[in-house]
């Protein structure tokens, strides 16, 4: 079973990397970009076939390691 955990910075947390990327997009002449926030994506393969179990496992993984919940939010998507 495939799953994806997406980790993003909480709103209000300064994201200098996002800002730098935003500036680079502007300098490429790509008009219309209002702002950029950088995050991380983890594609994870799960052994078990149970969806609810997989979600619980990934929530644990995100809380314990993948995200620093002081500054980051995460989303778990079990893709099936």
């Amino acid at each position, binding site marked *: 079973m495939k799953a994806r955990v997406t980790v993003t910075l909480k709103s209000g*947390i*300064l994201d*200098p*990397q996002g800002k730098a990327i935003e500036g680079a997009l502007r300098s490429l002449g790509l008009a219309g970009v209002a702002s950029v926030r950088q995050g991380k994506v983890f594609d994870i393969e799960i052994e078990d076939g149970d969806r609810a179990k997989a979600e619980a496992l990934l929530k644990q993984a995100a809380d*314990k*390691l993948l995200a*620093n919940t002081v*500054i980051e939010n995460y989303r778990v998507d079990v893709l099936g």
Partner: protein
Amino acid sequence: MKAAVLVFPGINRERDMARTLRLVSGREPSMVWHADRELPVGTDLVVIPGGFSYGDYLRCGAIAARSPIMEAVRAHAAKGGLLLGVCNGFQILCEAGLLPGVLMRNENLRFICRDVYLRVERSDTPFTRGYNAGQVVRVPVAHGEGNYIADGETIAKLEGEGRVLFRYSSPDGMIDPNWNHNGAINAIAGIVNDQGNVLGMMPHPENHVEAAIGPTDGRGLFAGLVEALDRAA
């Protein structure tokens, strides 16, 4: 003083730290590998040195903070044992939840490697008893992620409880954005936990302890620790 220096893959300041501990305390520290599960018997100071543990993968300090030795370090701190984290060590302590907050990318996005000035906020702690409150010391920094931040409530608590021990300052001790190199909130360079026995700081006091190399302002921190531990013994 019976010090233990933790060694993680990718750490590179452990020998500087060990040398300083030996110079100031006269005693050889133990080097403790991250995969060990116990600290040497009688350890009264644990030091997490600087470097790039696990190549800063995921987040600075994130993987080291979850390595096997950290359970023993947690137990040491819970018993009131002294614990010092410098640079990557500070990041590891935050990731381990032993100190609040987080160290973000420097505001100017650059790796900063230079001497800075720190104002010592108080002298009545085991870590700062070798200094006077308000004293300014010159020590080096070398980091890309030293921009300390925490939520408003945590910052108010840290400030209210006098848990900020070091701030980036001008050479005459003024707190000024121009001297706050990495953009840390309230120019915070080092904080202690609520019990006062765990210190995390970004600058490297261990690198300014020998006159042959340069300033010796870092010596006070280690000399103070030796004194505090000898008194307790």
